């Protein structure tokens, strides 16, 4: 008869015996050796009936199709942009996937996304050799202007976001900042400089204590102490109007505001291109 040797949510190290017996099943982050199920990663144990799995506590981001990430433009090539996103691999943003508008042949691509720009995009394909394709066509995908970028551990992203975005929603409303969290652990924050600092501290605290219970309450206390005002949790009830990307733990900003932003951005670019054409015709 199988026996589970470890308590739920216990921290285990690689090689530790989690369960014995053939009627327990090894799942993510575990492996079977003889009769034993052992840990293959440092993490927290999850037991679901007879299935034993591990929620990793560390590790770099592995690109997955459908994930929404924040990435940094580090190279521009003939056919598009190359992005790095806090992983062992880089991503390719092709011209076709970069924007819904027309890009003239031979256009200066830095006018659309320049080196060093941060963009919100979605992973469309990952090959066995980890060639990553991303797209920026769709709601919520845009260039990030202003604000600050911080990095959190990619395994802690679900905790930083909270259930249906409750954690990040609370921080956003309390500090009045715009916050976007990518699945790869890159976080963009924009607001009043003082408030940005508080939001960063709160996110870092949530990251550091991600494996503990009662996190939302502690972050609420922390924010109340920093801001010197009471926070009503009901105010920050999860928003219902979520875009499809929300399913992957990615939290959008206010929809209307963003669309307007995008519109402005595209208009700007159109103007730029118009200028280009004018110059060429001159």
């Amino acid at each position, binding site marked *: 008869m199988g026996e589970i040797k470890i308590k739920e949510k216990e*921290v285990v190290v*690689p090689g530790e015996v989690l369960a014995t017996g053939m009627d327990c099943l090894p799942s993510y982050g575990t492996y079977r050796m003889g009769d034993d199920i*052992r840990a293959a990663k*440092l993490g927290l144990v999850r037991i679901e009936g007879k299935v034993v799995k591990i929620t990793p506590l560390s590790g*770099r981001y592995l690109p997955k199709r459908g994930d929404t990430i924040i990435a940094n433009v580090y190279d521009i090539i003939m056919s598009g942009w190359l992005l790095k996103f806090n992983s062992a691999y880089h991503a390719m943003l092709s011209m076709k996937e970069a924007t819904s508008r027309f890009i003239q042949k031979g256009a200066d691509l830095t006018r659309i996304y320049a080196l060093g720009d941060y963009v919100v995009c979605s992973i469309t394909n990952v090959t066995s*050799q980890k060639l990553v394709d991303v797209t920026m066509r769709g709601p919520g995908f845009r260039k990030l202007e202003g604000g600050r970028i911080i990095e959190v551990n990619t395994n802690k992203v679900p905790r930083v976001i909270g259930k249906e975005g409750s954690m990040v929603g609370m921080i956003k409303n309390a500090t009045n900042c715009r916050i976007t969290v990518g699945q790869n652990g890159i976080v963009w924050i924009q607001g009043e400089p003082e408030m940005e600092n508080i939001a960063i501290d709160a996110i870092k605290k949530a990251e550091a204590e991600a494996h503990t219970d009662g996190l939302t309450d502690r972050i609420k206390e922390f924010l109340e102490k920093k801001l010197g005002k009471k926070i009503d949790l009901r105010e920050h009830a999860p928003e219902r109007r979520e875009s499809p990307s929300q399913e992957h733990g990615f939290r959008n900003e206010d929809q209307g505001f963003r669309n307007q932003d995008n519109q402005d951005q595209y208009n700007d670019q159109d103007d730029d291109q118009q200028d280009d054409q004018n110059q060429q015709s001159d």
Partner: protein
Amino acid sequence: MAYTKRLDGRKKFDELRPISAKAGIIPRAHGSAMFQIGKTIAYAAVYGPRELHPKFMQNPKTAILRCHYSMMPFSGSGDRVRPGPNRRSKEISMVTEKSLLPVLDLSQFPNAVVDVFIELPQTDAGSRCAGICAASIALADAGIPMRDMVCAVSVGRVDDKIVVDLDYSEEAYDKGPVADVPMAMIPSTGEISLLQMDGEISKEQLIEALETGKQKLLEIYEVQKKALKEKYK
């Protein structure tokens, strides 16, 4: 004539020096650890999996492991150690790599590299073993998929006694023959992933030394486990 008492005052011949270990000490590294055994201190920092250049070194089936062992200039008890890679440190980097690889599963990260940097600010023999212990904690801390930890210690003989965890004074013992045998073990299976030897030892003595070493390595394994769990207390 015979070696009757350990030079550093340890009570038993199979006693380890005091050990301490800590995980996650270098914030910007993806994983890191400190491992101290007696006066030997090793720091290990893991970076990766990350992109590997030059491209010809990439392996499309798996990530590669690159270890870098380095003694700091002031780390020895004698002269200044010349910094940078040398014959000895290149060899130790290579054996460290080979002792860690059997537990790692890097197939999830094709074309990438996992870099392990081991630095020793102070040494008193057993530095490659301390380095391997630190690197193993650091790799687990970095979230690299691994089958098990790797623990290492040196065993051997000083004169007619089988000893575990030789310090420098024992290695340099000149009143009788000495053998120094660094070994690394994968605790779950008892497999040996590092076995080197310097000096003279008989077959029977070697077997006895390895068996004693295996028992003692389990103590080191417990310290490694504790160090990783402490980080998330």
